[in-house]
Structures are given as C-alpha cells and as structure tokens.
C-alpha cells in the first residue's frame, strides 16, 4: 500500500467549472480533504473532482501551495510573494478563497486568508462590514438606539 501510494506521480484536480489541474503530490499535502481522498484510493493515477472550488480560485491556491512547498525559496521571498498575492485579490476573491480553504481543510492557508480579511475590515465602519459580509442589520430599533449610545461613551 505504502509503495503504491508513493508511486503516484500526478494528481488531477477538477474544479467546479470543469477546468483541470495536474499537480505533484507534495502540492496537495496541505489540502487535507484531498489528501484523505488520496489515502483512501488504491490507484496510481488519481483524479479528484472539487465541485466547491472554481478554476480561478484553485489556480491561485495551487500557486500559493507551490511557492510555499518549495524548499529553494527563502523566507523573505515567500513573504514578498504573500504580500503581492493579497494585493492582487479583490474583496470577493478573499472570501471565496477563505471558503475554499475551509472546504479543502488547509490550515495555514486558512489562517493566511483570515489575516487578509481581518486587515480589510480593520478601521472600517459598521456599514462597510455589513456590505462586505453581505449582511443586513437585524437589530430592533431599541437595540440600534442602545448601540448608538454605546458608541458615544464606550471607548471615549
């Protein structure tokens, strides 16, 4: 079993929109959902459907995993990559990637995205956060009034 598993050379990931990605086994190590799938299979070639992740997102995740799995890259280069990686994402991308990370069960990528999202809602208004998370206020008028009052004194 162990010998067979190590003979797996290429893993094929199929995203929700049908796009196909061929990656090396070390790239999916971080994706616990995928890894457990592989561990259960008894084959040399593996093809895994990921109906919850879009092609664009999966491409980004794989790019991230490749960079971080690489042993040649320095810590500084990885940090630089992370910085640029977050910079080119839109707000929606971040939330979708966070969801994907949760679905794929990728601990460190999940923390990375959580940090990026936290940075985005830092120093923003309540309205901004509502808009960002696609959520409407469900406070009663009394509660709203209480919150307004709270703002006047709490951190003053």
């Amino acid at each position, binding site marked *: 079993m162990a010998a067979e598993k190590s003979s797996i050379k290429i893993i094929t990931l199929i995203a*929700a*929109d049908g796009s196909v990605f061929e990656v090396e086994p070390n790239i999916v190590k971080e994706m616990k959902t995928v890894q457990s*799938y592989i561990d*259960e*299979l008894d084959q040399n070639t593996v093809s*895994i*459907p*990921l*109906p*919850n992740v*879009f092609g*664009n*997102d999966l491409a980004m995740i794989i790019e991230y995993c490749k960079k971080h799995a690489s042993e040649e890259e320095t810590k500084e280069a990885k940090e630089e990559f992370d910085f640029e990686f977050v910079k080119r994402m839109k707000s*929606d991308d971040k*939330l*979708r990637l*966070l*969801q994907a990370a*949760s679905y794929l069960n990728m601990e460190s990528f*999940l*923390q990375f995205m*959580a*940090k990026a*999202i*936290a*940075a985005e*809602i*830092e*120093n*923003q*208004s*309540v309205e901004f*956060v*509502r808009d960002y*998370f*696609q*959520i*409407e*206020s*469900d*406070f009663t008028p009394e*509660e709203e009034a*209480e*919150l307004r*009052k*709270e*703002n006047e*004194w*709490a*951190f*003053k």
Partner: protein
Amino acid sequence: MSQEKHCVPKLMNQEDCKVSLLDIPDVILDCILKRLPPLDLFRVSQVCTYLRNIGRSDDLWETHIEHKWSKLVGNDAHHEWQWHTTKIINEGSIIFLPENKENLLLQQSLSGSCGTISGDSPFLRLHSYLKSYKGLNGLIRNYSKMALYICLETGRFCFPAQVYKATRFTLYCYDALVCYDSKTDTFRARSPNGGRHMIEKDIHWDRLRKPPHNTFLVDFYHSNCLNDLKPGDHIEIQKRRRRALPYCEWWYAVVCHLGSCDKDINHCSCRNSDTLVLEFNQYSHTVTYSLTRSAINSKVYVELTCLAGIRKLTDDEEIIKWKNLIFTRNQELRLAE
C-alpha cells in the same frame, strides 16, 4: 471510499457565488475575529445580532486583556473586578448603602462605585473603584470581559497596583489605585486612603507592577523566610511612612554581613545570628540598618523601627527591576548635576 462526501451541488458560475457571512463556519469566523484589534472587534460586534454574540464573547476579549493588561492586572485587580460585577448583577439598580460614617465619606468622595474596603477606622482603605453607570452596567452584566477591557482602557476602572519610586535618598514601591489614560499611554495614581487624593500622574508602564501575592495594602506581611536570610539575599521590607500610621511602602534592600564577620564564606555565621543587617541603596552611598530577627514580629518593635514584614525576592526579574531603577535614577541624577 464514500462518494457522497464529495457530492456537493455543483456551482455553475463564479459571479453567482457571493459569499455571505452566514456561509462562513463559526470556527473560521473566529479566526478572522481573533485577528482584529479591540476597537475593530467592538465595531464588528455592532453589525448584526449574530456578530454581536460571537464578537463580544469572553474568549475573544480575554485574549485582548491578556495581551495588553496581564502584566499589570493581577489577582488583586481581578478580585476587585469580580466584586464590582457581582454587585452590579445582584443589586441591579439598588444603591450600595454604606455601613458607617467612614464608608459614607469614602463613597461621597468618588463619583463611582467603591470596591472592597479594608483596615480599621480611621485608616480605611479602598481597594478599587469603578466609574460606572447604567449603560456600562448593562455591558458588565452581559459581556463581562469586554466591559473589563473597556473600563481598563478608558480609565474607568481604578485598580490595585504598585508604583516604583526612586529619588536621591529613597527607593521604594507604594500601593495605589491606578487608572489608565489611553491618550498619553500613562497612568494616574490615587491614594487608597479615601481615593480622593491624586498622588502622581504621567506614570509610565515601567514604573508599575502588579502587586505580588499578599502584598497589597497589608499592614504586616508575614513571611517564613526570616530565619533563612543570609548575606547577598535581595529583599523588600515594609516601611511605615510615619509612626502610628499603618500605611507601608515596600523598600528594596540587600542582606549584608555583620560588622564582626570577615565575609569569608567558610566561616561566615551571619545566617545564624539574631541580628540582621540590611543595606539600603541611595544615590551616593548606602545606608545600613540592623534588625533583631526574633523581634521583627512584635508590635512594639514595629512601632519603634517603622519596619515591618520582609519579603525575600526569589524571582530574578524582580531583582533586575530594582537594579534597573537604581541605574536609571543614578544616571539621571548624574546628568542633572
């Protein structure tokens, strides 16, 4: 291999997939909230009832308290906070009635709610106070940890702490009720005797400490180290400000050899002597005091010497702190000369 696990509805279009907060599992939302600074966490908790309930959870705010306040807010302060919260929860809007005239005086001199009181009349001492009112009481009842953070941060909670003080001739640590000023990132210290008198302001973090166990506002510190003290040991000793007043400050000293000892480790018997010699540090020289070990616990002796309980310093950090204070003071005085 169960196929079901991976059979989730297929998403057709990326644009359709706007992620709402409700799609994010709690555990993951927690990861985001944990990374928010206090003010942002507070703001996020005003977004909707769902975010209010998790954004104000004790766990999240405990982390912020730990991060900013744990080096200063110790058991004494937590005990006082507990006292205030219990009072607010139990008594609701009923006003706390003072038991005697002195309590009344304490109450009237402050605008908030008094913490625990110790000592005998007329030397009553207040261990904390809280500038509280209706709105804040609501927060305290429902979200105690967040309320504590807010009260510390905004200086509403005046909590027990000890303030280091170093001048040319003195070097000690005194008990005070301190409150924080976030604008200047400094503290104000008030006297525990009535709480009315401000003693000092603009106190920086490094001049404060959380009171070690059983050292805050105690008339006599009972130690079991008295007979083990030997030359080279670092100690703090309680010293009364004035005779007949129970108020003490903690003075730093080092145990040294007796005058008759030749300071040779091989035949030094200072440890067994009933006389204990302490060396106090002053700017230009040191002052030594001889004490009688067997008499230290006696009331008359305390009255006579104004010195009370001794606490041996076993924590290197505490010793280093005193040494740094001496160093900084000496440097400042030298520059001023």
